[in-house]
């Protein structure tokens, strides 16, 4: 058996879930193994990616940003994908799996609302009823996405427990799944959760990196020197990274949310400041206290506001193939503004973390290096948060 497909990324991964779920996870793994080599499935999947989602997304040359920072910068434009973020890639794949498994209902968790919107979109299109779990804090700060989900026909369930964000939404989705295991597919949105989800989600997101690799060759005739992506649970980043893992000359950087600063304790920098533990089905780095209680995460970017991380990122950190660093709320806001003013692109607050890390790392790169930054999503959903943050800044000044 393919070693990675065992679900163990080094010591990370596994399936730490109630026994009831194991049968559904086994069924999912068996089905996924079957379709992995199935041309018909991928013909349909690729067709949807092209005709429905709008792939391939462009790799955009950023002339002004490049000039300002002295590196050749290319932007992978997942923000231009239908629904406005990379999440749709995975949802289309899992939507077809849901049909194949003959499940009649879909549930999903969402933080920023992007995965919720992508799930609602695919479920509308494939005619599958769906319910989305969303923490009440996220519900308030991403109202526009709540409206989009409802417009698409999804039922959005507000979660009031714990920190009322992504972590708690995932708890509730898992509880729903245990209860409705025979009828329901849990469409996990991140490359996290119990095996085989981290593998399946990564495989459906690999298209980001595979396209980017071809596109950069076409544009520059060479591989990039470094690639950047933001890491919450880690699906857009693993999707980009995977295609470059074997290219030892390509430096890989993941931007975590350092929130108000790692030293304040108000952050989501799981890989930088956590230690291995078990949450939501897998062993991976985790923000936890000395007793093993999971700590609440903080980030201005709801999609990064998560105390865990996908197990493959933990593996890439420990094997030193990728470098993960924290970016504060302020640094992300600053990068978002720079990109908007230099290139006319307003990216999502999550993606702004990747942009900020690239700006920080420029001085470590050789002059005239080429880099790719993954713009995982667009910023429309964040306008209210950005306005509030700028108002608060102005009042301080």
């Amino acid at each position: 058996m393919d070693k990675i497909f065992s679900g163990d990324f080094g010591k990370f991964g596994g399936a730490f879930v109630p026994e009831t779920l194991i049968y559904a996870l086994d069924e999912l793994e068996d089905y996924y193994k079957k379709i992995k080599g199935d041309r018909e499935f991928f013909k349909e999947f690729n067709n949807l990616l092209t005709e429905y989602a709008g792939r391939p997304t462009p790799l955009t040359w950023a002339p002004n940003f490049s000039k300002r920072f002295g590196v050749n910068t290319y932007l992978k434009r997942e923000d231009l994908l239908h629904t406005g973020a990379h999440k749709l890639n995975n949802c289309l794949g899992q939507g077809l799996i849901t049909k194949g498994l003959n499940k009649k209902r879909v549930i999903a968790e969402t933080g920023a609302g992007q995965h919720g919107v992508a799930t609602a979109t695919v479920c509308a299109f494939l005619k599958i009823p769906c319910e989305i779990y969303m923490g009440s804090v996220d519900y308030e700060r991403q109202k526009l996405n709540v409206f989009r989900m409802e417009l698409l026909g999804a039922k959005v369930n507000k979660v009031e427990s714990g920190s009322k964000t992504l972590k708690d939404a995932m708890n509730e989705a898992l509880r729903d799944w245990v209860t409705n295991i025979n009828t329901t597919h849990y469409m996990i949105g991140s490359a996290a959760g119990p095996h085989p989800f981290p593998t399946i989600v990564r495989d459906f997101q690999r298209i980001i990196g595979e396209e980017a690799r071809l596109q950069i060759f076409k544009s520059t005739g060479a591989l990039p020197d470094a690639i950047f992506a933001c890491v919450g649970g880690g699906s857009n980043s693993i999707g980009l990274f995977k295609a470059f893992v074997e290219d030892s000359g390509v430096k890989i950087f993941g931007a975590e949310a350092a929130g108000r600063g790692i030293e304040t304790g108000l952050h989501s920098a799981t890989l930088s400041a956590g230690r291995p533990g078990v949450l939501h089905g897998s062993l991976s780095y985790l923000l936890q206290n000395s007793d093993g209680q999971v700590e609440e995460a903080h980030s201005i970017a709801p999609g990064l506001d998560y105390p865990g991380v996908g197990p493959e990122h933990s593996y890439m950190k420990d094997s030193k193939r990728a470098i993960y660093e924290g970016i504060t709320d302020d640094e992300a806001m600053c990068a978002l503004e720079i990109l908007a003013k230099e290139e006319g692109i307003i990216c999502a607050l999550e993606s702004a973390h990747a942009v900020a890390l690239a700006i920080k790392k420029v001085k470590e790169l050789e002059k005239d290096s080429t880099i790719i930054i993954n713009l995982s999503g667009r910023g429309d959903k964040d306008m209210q948060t950005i306005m509030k943050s700028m108002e608060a800044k102005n009042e301080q000044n």
Partner: protein
Amino acid sequence: MNKIKEILKEKKTLIPFLPAGYPSINATKQFVKVLVNCGIKVVELGVPFSDPVADGPTITNSYSFAIQNGTKSEDVYLMADELKDEFGIAIIPMLYYNLIYNKGEENFAKRISSFADAVIVPDLPFKESHRLRPHLEKFDISYVPFATPNIKEEDIKKISDYANAFIYAVTVFGITGARSSYSNDTYTYLERVKKISSKYVAAGFGVSSKEQFESLPTDAVIIGSALVKQIEPDNIEKSKENIEGLIKKIIN
């Protein structure tokens, strides 16, 4: 012979579950004393965890309360040591895997060996249990495998081989929380587990009444959420009366 097995051999056994530290460690100790006075011989003690995905709102909220009150795992273990010394009952800690991983499997097994007769880990399915089983064996603590309504016959046989004390049969698809009744499917499935396995079987999830306790075709029945609901955090004496009332109603 394993202490739990001795107890289950005697007669159909009610195993009450209490979330340790709800509303305080001291209160939990008093509640256990009430249980012992009612004739209870095996107690399941929940070690509070921040993200209990197998639990419904009753137990989840009790855990949040206990954690906010500053309850640490070690506080629970110290209390369990005292309960063991004072009452000599069988104690089964129930906790999520991160609390075990955080301490290290071997250290954990060593630490709880002073009081634990068995351990229940709701998010450690059989296929991951190899991480913990050898350490439990070393300290003579029973591993408790789960049966679920979707279990296959060959899996009942497989987990039976690893069940030292008993199999925990989850009565329904779902999370913990009182249910007024079960469907016929629950009875059919439990009878199937009993028939195929030669080991003792304890049914849990949803138990709240004498009728359920008596009708479930298993050697033991675990009562959790319904008991936790008897606890009024700001009135310990009333909570004790409530607990006594419910337990006596079920077993007498």
